[in-house]
């Protein structure tokens, strides 16, 4: 492993990697695209695009059904991808890998199955102030239905969780801690190993929202000992509409099914239906087969480069970009945690982020402007929105320079 790491570290050739992404060679508004909206969604390498294309051209068929060759090929590709994912996050068994539409569906699945079965009136669910709406609303809905209480871990001015407050929050009523691994709005990397440890010591389960960590950090679900981990494929260079719920097998076995339908049953009569075992128990209906195959290819692509190498590259961009933007007096960076992924959220004097976004866009620089589906975070810093640049494996320092130039231009326009 160490030799591989050394090799990838010295061999990180971003210009070569960029050639794998067809979209990066296009122009917008007559200038080269500078894509810095990777926390929203990532671009897709040719290997992923071609894998989906090949499925439809050569072996499109439904899975787990036909005895014909096409169905067998499709089923094999679909189940092989599950093993690829299992290895990628080091799950103990491929039965612990459940396909979903994305992180959001994974969270809702746990809330609606495990949650409805196990949460009772008076119980407590802990989330944090950093959460994306998708890790707030499903728990609010569950708490409302059950008469349970939602508790929120506060953050400091740097956008870091207050762990002491968290520890004091845990008690016998705490049944679940649902926590983002990396904040999408600020980039904060949360100390989830500690969070999981404390939760377990009080007998609570932990769901980790990995939507923003999966493309940036090496995740080992067994080492973390999390009970559930969810992510979306499209944040890690795979197609949209496909994601993963990892769950410890013991939990998955005990959980009721999510949706009823084909593929999730062992046998059906009008009197009684026997459910399939995990993972198929949670995969009713014909799934997004092409998306699954694409996801498998995307993880292969990332693994070949090495997540450590990608993380190191992105960190370099983060440091470089933070330094450059900090030179501009009107820039206020929101989220200055000691541990951060490649996200720079900022405001610019009293210029509204939407205006920043428009001017940057005209100069080819794609960033997100808005509340990032994390309105409580914006409220915490008393701002309506931020502009957010987020880095992926293919971004360059020259692109960070383009961002800085466009930010300065924005200041000129509103001077």
């Amino acid at each position, binding site marked *: 492993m160490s030799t591989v790491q050394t090799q990838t570290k010295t061999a990180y050739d971003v210009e070569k990697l960029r050639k794998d992404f067809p979209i990066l060679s296009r122009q917008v508004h007559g200038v080269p695209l500078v894509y810095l909206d990777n926390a929203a969604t990532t671009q897709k390498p040719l290997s992923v695009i071609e894998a989906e294309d090949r499925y439809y051209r050569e072996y499109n068929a439904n899975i787990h059904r036909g005895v014909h060759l096409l169905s067998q090929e499709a089923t094999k590709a679909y189940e092989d991808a599950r093993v690829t994912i299992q290895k990628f996050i080091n799950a103990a068994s491929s039965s612990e890998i459940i396909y979903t539409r994305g992180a959001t569906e994974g969270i809702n699945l746990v809330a609606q199955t495990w949650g409805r079965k196990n949460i009772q009136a008076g119980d407590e669910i802990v989330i944090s102030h950093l959460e994306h709406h998708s890790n707030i609303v499903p728990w609010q809905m569950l708490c409302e239905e059950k008469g349970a209480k939602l508790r929120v871990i506060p953050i400091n001015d740097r956008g870091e969780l207050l762990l002491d407050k968290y520890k004091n929050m845990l008690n016998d009523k705490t049944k679940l801690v649902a926590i983002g691994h990396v904040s999408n709005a600020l980039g904060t990397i949360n100390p989830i190993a500690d969070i999981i440890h404390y939760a377990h010591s009080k007998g609570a389960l932990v769901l980790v929202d990995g939507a923003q960590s999966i493309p940036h950090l090496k995740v080992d679900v067994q080492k973390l000992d999390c009970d559930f981990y969810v992510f979306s494929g499209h944040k890690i260079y795979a197609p949209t509409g496909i994601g993963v719920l990892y769950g410890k097998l013991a939990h998955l076995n005990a959980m009721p099914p999510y949706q009823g339908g084909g593929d999730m049953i062992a046998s059906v009569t009008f009197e009684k239906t026997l459910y399939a075992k995990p993972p198929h128990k949670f995969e009713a209906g014909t799934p997004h087969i092409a998306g699954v195959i694409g996801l498998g290819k995307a993880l292969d692509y990332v693994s070949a480069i090495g997540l450590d190498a990608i993380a190191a590259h992105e960190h370099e961009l983060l440091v470089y970009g933070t330094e450059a933007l900090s030179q501009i007096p009107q820039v206020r960076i929101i989220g200055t945690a000691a541990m951060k992924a490649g996200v720079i959220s900022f405001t610019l004097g009293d210029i509204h*982020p939407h205006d920043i976004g428009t001017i940057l866009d005209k100069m080819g620089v794609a960033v997100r402007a808005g509340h990032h589906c994390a309105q409580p975070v914006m409220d915490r810093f008393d701002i309506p929105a931020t502009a957010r640049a987020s880095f992926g494996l293919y971004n360059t320092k020259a692109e960070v320079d383009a961002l800085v130039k466009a930010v300065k231009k924005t200041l000129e326009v509103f001077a």
Partner: protein
Amino acid sequence: MSDFSDLYQDLILDHQKNPRNFGVLPDANHHADGFNPLCGDKISLDLKLDDQGVIQDIHFKGSGCAISKASASMMTVSLKGKKVSEAEHLFHEFHDMVMGKIDHAPEDLGKLKVFEGVKEYPARVKCASLAWHTMEAALKNEKEVISTDDGKGSES
């Protein structure tokens, strides 16, 4: 490429920096609130209508991007003294202009024609029209917050 004067014209930047008719109107008899969830633009609109159906006074308050703020400010200037029917007529012309439904901005829009450039920026149409949707709601004294995402303010 580096010229943004099609969208951010001087007049728009002036109204953004120095919004006219900004603040609460104490003797208003019509009111509505508007919200653009996409970017968090908020506007609160007060109107004073006389019994002839003429807008005697109109004020706005709120926070938002340059386009939404300037649009609200310039709307209040252009609507003061207008009849309700004229206001609604201007709204429709303004709406068609920013949506790019008409090739040339109608002359009676006057200074509001500076917003014609918005049609080249589809993501900003809601910003420009939020104040107008809120004005229409205020005329009806609608209680619910007007959102550009709930169909009423939809620009699709």
